[in-house]
């Protein structure tokens, strides 16, 4: 597993800001998120090959965000199934070119080889992948972090790979549905696991206890944004009144919190 750094994506970190990794079975390997650039994807592939020569049969793309998926191009020659949420192709069609352009602008030569890779296997509810003596349960979720979130449960080690449905230490990014995310958390936290892998944060954390700060932040954003809308605070100023108690608890709070409130305001003003 690669532990993403808690920085904004930048050339110095090759967009390697997310937790990415792979799981090896008796017959095959599954990659869970190939990383934020082809370069990071190549490094992940080299790490796999240093450990095993079993075929890389699956590359799971947990959601549309560039820090998780632009490494996919590095696995083209393995001809894996690229597994994704049924809504990922739509999200990629809308945002893929924009993300790629931004990656190239920000990273220049470092971004070379990074491409939008379309998924080949789509998951609408659940899909089991057999790696040989090791079964992975891939689940598609309703709108939460994005509208195309997947989680992976490794039954052998009871490891719950939540990707960006779980942020630890780094502030969660709301890019799907705030209310949907809270609902997903209610359900996900009923699932017992030996450990969880967040999309950002330490690579192994206790579950479900580690979900609590995220749930608390999202609930505070929901409560305070509703209050701001009720008291006619405009969308531009709302973040100043929302979840201030959370500031000390999260890295990159000032970079992402105002955007989260803008998105939440737009979602909640229709209630």
């Amino acid at each position, binding site marked *: 597993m690669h532990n993403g750094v808690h920085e904004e994506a930048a050339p110095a970190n090759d967009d390697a800001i997310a937790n990415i990794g792979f799981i090896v079975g008796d017959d095959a390997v599954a990659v869970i998120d190939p990383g934020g650039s082809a370069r990071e994807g190549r490094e992940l592939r080299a790490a796999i090959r240093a450990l095993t020569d079993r075929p890389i049969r699956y590359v799971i793309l947990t959601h549309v965000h560039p820090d998780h998926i632009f490494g996919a191009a590095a696995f083209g020659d393995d001809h894996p199934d690229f597994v994704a949420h049924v809504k990922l192709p739509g*999200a990629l069609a809308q945002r893929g070119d924009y993300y790629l352009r931004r990656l190239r602008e920000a990273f220049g030569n470092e971004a070379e080889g990074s491409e939008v890779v379309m998924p080949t296997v789509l998951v609408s509810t659940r899909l089991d992948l057999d790696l040989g003596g090791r079964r992975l349960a891939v689940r598609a979720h309703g709108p939460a972090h994005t509208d195309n979130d997947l989680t992976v449960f490794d039954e052998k080690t009871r490891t719950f790979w939540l990707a960006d449905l779980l942020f630890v230490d780094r502030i969660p990014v709301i890019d799907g*549905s705030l209310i949907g995310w809270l609902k997903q958390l209610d359900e996900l936290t009923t699932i017992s696991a030996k450990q969880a892998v967040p999309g950002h944060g330490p690579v192994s954390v206790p579950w479900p206890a580690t979900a609590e700060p995220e749930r608390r932040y999202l609930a505070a954003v929901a409560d305070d944004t509703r209050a701001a809308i009720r008291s006619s605070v405009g969308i531009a100023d709302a973040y100043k009144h929302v979840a201030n108690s959370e500031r000390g608890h999260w890295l990159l709070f000032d970079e992402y919190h105002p955007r989260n409130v803008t998105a939440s305001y737009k979602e909640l003003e229709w209630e």
Partner: protein
Amino acid sequence: MGVTLPMLGRAALCSLLLGIALLGPARAEPTEAERMTRWSDLKHTIFGDRVVEAAGDLVAIDAPARAEDAAIVPVSIRVAGTLAPEIGGFYLIIDDNPSPLAAHFLLGPIADAREIATRVRIDDYTYLHAVAETADGRLYMAARFIKAAGGCSAPASKDQALAFERRGKMKLSFADRGRPDEPVKVKLLISHPNSSGLQMDPVTRNYIPADFMQTLDVTYNGQPIFRLESDIAISEDPSFNFSVRPSNPSGTG
């Protein structure tokens, strides 16, 4: 309160805009002098040879210096109380957008001109200009620079299925008035994609045809509050904040 909305896509405009959008690698950041020239050209295109005065303290345009989401940038235009009764309309110009004249508000007699706000898409780092026009034709200009990019082609709703279900709904809310003779603050939300023609359809992967509000008439008891003539720069789910002075102060609709 009544709202009417003829919606029309413009195919010709759409293909013209596509041409601009596909021009390739990012161009170099314009110099301040180039930005001034751009504004001077736009001013001439929109107002011809009319004099556009710097508004000083009389008119202000508010927007965040750096937009949190370039597809939903809140912008408000404020006018000093002394000048407000003379104002008959506003122009909102986003200099470096593909279609710079974002909105033209024509105020009715019961509108309060001191503040009007909406949300816009911003495609690149740009100046915003607000020009307030008095009933006798004077033009007062205020400017603000904003850092935001990609708003015109940015993906629409985060939750596509929900946006589709809600399409066409409107929501009107009124703030409480302190005193009966104060203007009533009104917020109007319209659930509509206001597609710019620069966004991709998630299913067909073709560009979504432009489908945006061209005119919006907001009335109270048959009296016009404002007419908006607008364009692709108004954000998805158009939102307007404005104030009304009902001629019959007992009711607010």
